[in-house]
């Protein structure tokens, strides 16, 4: 069975600090990975995604993630966070079986950035 683990449930940083959120997955098929973000009062938005090719993926708002196959990881990084990055972050893996699709999400990481 596939699963996604986000080990950090709540992260608190000061502005300008660097961010790394951990994500480990367990899935035996072709790996398609996503990071979504939910800002307060808003809906889930896609930050970035990995399907194939360059394992270093760049997304919106200065975020990036690195797919490390040997470690089953897809950690999210940002060199310098801003107060506006306060949100909940979700890692997800896409499971495909024929034409059926479903995302399996991690439990989410709440990021609080202090001004």
């Amino acid at each position, binding site marked *: 069975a596939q699963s996604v683990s986000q080990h950090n449930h709540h992260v608190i940083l000061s502005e300008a600090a660097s961010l790394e959120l951990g994500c480990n997955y367990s899935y035996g098929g072709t790996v*398609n990975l996503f990071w979504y973000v939910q800002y307060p009062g808003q809906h889930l938005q*896609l930050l970035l995604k990995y399907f194939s090719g360059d394992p270093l993926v760049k997304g919106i708002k200065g975020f990036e993630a690195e797919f490390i196959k040997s470690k089953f990881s897809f950690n999210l990084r940002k060199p310098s966070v801003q107060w506006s990055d306060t949100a909940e972050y979700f890692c997800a893996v896409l499971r495909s079986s024929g034409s*059926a*699709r479903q995302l399996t999400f991690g439990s989410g990481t709440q990021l609080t950035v202090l001004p």
Partner: protein
Amino acid sequence: EAGVTQFPSHSVIEKGQTVTLRCDPISGHDNLYWYRRVMGKEIKFLLHFVKESKQDESGMPNNRFLAERTGGTYSTLKVQPAELEDSGVYFCASSQAGSRETQYFGPGTRLLVL
């Protein structure tokens, strides 16, 4: 381009009542998904439509939940009768056909069963 919309945004009902949630996907998206997040836990898959056909409903909790997608456009998710443990946020997402699809999410419906 309009995003995925969901109605209502909030619903408060009593145990035993019926509630129907609606999702309008992005125009032209054949794939429509329902997910649920209960009490701050993981967002969990409920089911997947391709056009009007249920492709995968392995995540539906039990037969109190019924999802439909008439004509392959909007979808409804009915809970009848609602139980306390059904409280949570119900998300809808849609995507275009294709192997490298990205799912775009709606704002969710927050359901509270008292």
